């Protein structure tokens, strides 16, 4: 297949995912559109060096993350990690070893008989630092290694953020009465 055609086909195939990740990184629709455009321009120029054994989606997400980091450096958007100010966990920055975390029992959530939309909304309301890895895993179905490559962090950090994000999500879905109670239970 002609490379231009291949690039177009792959981009259109993954457009929903690309737009969703752009929204996550850029925070609003207009900026997300800019981020998506700039990512496509950069990716198109680099498509000759794209290795076909790597997922196109992961490759594009990595480029998009880099573009967004460029923007952060240029102060066009706030960095994702700065949004989390929770005091819990080793080092106080939301990082800890994954092995020390036991998942919250999902039984109460199942009893509540929530809809998928409830879960989707709860994921969108997670602190950005956790939302990113939870979305990349639960919605995009990416492996830990791919997520680590995209966000430029070690796999251990991915695991840690994923455990925490999932537990916060469960706490929110179990009892959405008080953020304070939720954060204590989840963290």
């Amino acid at each position, binding site marked *: 297949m002609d490379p231009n055609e291949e690039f177009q086909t792959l981009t259109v195939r993954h457009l929903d*995912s690309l737009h969703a990740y752009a929204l996550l990184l850029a925070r609003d629709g207009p900026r997300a*559109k800019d981020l*998506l*455009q700039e990512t496509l321009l950069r990716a198109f120029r680099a498509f000759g060096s794209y290795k076909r054994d790597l997922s196109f989606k992961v490759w594009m997400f990595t480029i998009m993350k880099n573009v967004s980091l460029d923007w952060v450096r240029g102060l066009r958007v706030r960095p994702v990690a700065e949004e989390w100010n929770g005091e819990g966990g080793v080092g106080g920055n939301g990082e800890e070893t*994954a092995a*020390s975390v036991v998942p919250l029992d999902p039984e109460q*959530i199942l009893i509540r008989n929530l809809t998928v939309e409830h*879960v989707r909304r709860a994921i969108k309301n997670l602190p950005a630092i956790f939302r990113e890895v939870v979305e990349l895993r639960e919605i995009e179905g990416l492996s830990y290694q791919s997520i680590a490559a995209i966000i430029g962090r070690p796999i251990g950090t991915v*695991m840690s953020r994923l455990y925490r994000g999932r537990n916060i999500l469960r706490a929110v879905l179990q009892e959405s009465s008080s953020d304070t109670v939720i954060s204590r239970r989840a963290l």
Partner: protein
Amino acid sequence: MTCDVARAKFFLYLDGELAGEEQAALETHLYTCPDCQRLMHLERTFRTRYLDRLGPDPAPEAVRREVVRLLEALPARDVRAWLRSHRRPSMIRLGTVVVGIVLVVGGGVIGVAFRRLGNGASVSLTQLAEASVEQHQKLTRGLLPYDVREMSPTRMEQWFKGRLDFNVNLPELPRKNLALLGGRISYLRDSQVAALHYQLDGKDVSLFVMPLETYRQLGLGGRPKFKIVTYQGYDVIVWASHGVAYSLVSEIGGQSCLVCHSPDERLDFPTGFRAHGRL
């Protein structure tokens, strides 16, 4: 394996991230522990009922249409026209407002030497300076990889020839403490430019060479020949010569002129600019 250790691995197991002995140990524990079996069943149910049904929200139809048009424009190298008609101007407008406010209150963040420029040209110059500084930061921090490196100016000119639809004439390196580190094709305000990264006495200097058409479209021209903006602490000098236009970015004021000129040349800079004070 204790129940706590086993449960701490549930996510890994269900995510398919456990293998080998760890996976076997967990499966052995599950086989012998009804409590963990029950929890694992709940985990699977939770996934099946909710998580497996999640997918990305569909991109809005307007975004989809624009992306398709952009994709069609990319191979035809008609991206500039496409971006000119589609790019959201709000950040530029915001930047302009900020520049305006700072100028009104006389703040020190952005100082502008616009003396003989009209309002429209002043705004354009600020936008060009903003874009130049952004590219300079990326180029000098290694965020924009070079297309070519370690070449003489003459060979680099040859490299750009045929790749850009305007001539790139680079100055020879008149001083030993001046090095041309690399170059690339880049974009300034949707216009394709040659971006050159120099170091002068170890200080980064970027030179962007653009088509004269871009310069004219910005309403720039006439006097002063060298238009000077200080933006975010960077000194930006913009001028046109011999059918192309240039934007020179550095943190060393008029010293950056040494990229093109010998120290004894006299240039037409406004009073107060540290143009040649340290030459």
